[in-house]
């Protein structure tokens, strides 16, 4: 429907390596994917949408063109990951802002010594 049309909804299938497994996106493919993501998120920012999965219809109406560009350059797992991450980072920023207004002070350095095996 958008500028890119409906045909390019996912990146071209990855090259298959000599031992039969799909080769991961290389540096240029990653950069292209990130560009598509940034363009899409800029559009979401303009429309005031944070959660493009929860507000799917609105996001589709406002940013259809950018969404196609995003999906055309990134694997679908990456698209979902970046969309969820956007929500997570927004929540994180909000929590920090809330704490700051409550008078909390930023502690320098790490909160706790990071142990191995800790999830990101």
């Amino acid at each position: 429907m958008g500028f890119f049309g409906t045909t390019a909804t996912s990146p071209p299938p990855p090259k298959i390596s000599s031992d039969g497994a799909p080769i991961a996106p290389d540096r240029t493919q990653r950069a292209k994917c990130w560009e598509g993501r940034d363009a899409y998120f800029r559009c979401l920012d303009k429309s005031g949408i944070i959660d493009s999965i929860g507000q799917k219809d609105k996001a589709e109406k406002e940013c259809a063109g950018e969404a196609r560009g995003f999906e055309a350059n990134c694997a679908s797992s990456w698209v979902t990951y970046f969309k969820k991450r956007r929500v997570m980072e927004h929540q994180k920023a909000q929590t920090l802002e809330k704490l700051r207004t409550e008078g909390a002070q930023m502690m320098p350095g790490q909160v706790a010594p990071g142990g191995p095996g800790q999830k990101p």
Partner: protein
Amino acid sequence: MSKSFIPSRSLLSSFSRSLKYDKPMQQCLRLRSINASCRAPAPAPKSFSTSSARPYKTVEEQRSRYKSGPFSYRAGLLFLTSGAGLIIYFRYEKARMERLRIAEATKGVGRPKVGGPFELVDQEGRVFTDADMRGRYALVYFGFSHCPDICPEELDKMAVMIELVNGEGGKKGLLPLFITCDPARDTPAVLKEYLKEFHSGIVGLTGSWEQVKDVCKKYRVYFSTPQGVKKGEDYLVDHSIYFYLMDPEGDFVEAIGRQHSPEQAAKIIGGHVGDWRGK
């Protein structure tokens, strides 16, 4: 008696005066019984100094010494350099002890052991075990090639660290390892393609699902890769994002997280590598 003594005394003193200029000490000794006021000639009659004579060669030397007190430029310089030397040494020792404490803290009894024996395959298809890590420090990173954003960033950081630490030492310093958490998609050929974009020195390791799960467990890495995924399936893998620094005996030293810049990380690693003297 007394009358006859007086003239002889004045006579003797005039005699002694004439002698004084020749051999005063001798004369004093001889006359001590008679003249109680006889003293050894004072070296400087005007000085009231109580200290004994110092070996000054000239008056000028003595004067300059008196002006500056017990200090001189040479003494001051010596004081400052030795002081600065001590401060530098103590700082170095303090940093070294701190690193040692971190390294030892992970070795003690009752501590969770990170690392251990494993058998995997490198990107050339050769078998690679924990024994191949021995003899030098290793920087271990877990990830997967289909990782959207964090792994590539971290691997770029790793490349900078390798360059900074191994810059002069060549191959001796640090062995960088990339262990995949996604063995289904990360075959040796895929890893080879993937890692050559970051640094030629990184050894990429993969294996069967069981082998990878085992090594992740030993390194306390969160492992969520589903078993038996179909070919061409698109999924992501959760994993820890720490660099594990392992010493030449395969013991865990320190974890380096995302909060460290490559320069900071290289400094930490370089410090540990420099401390190693073999045990």
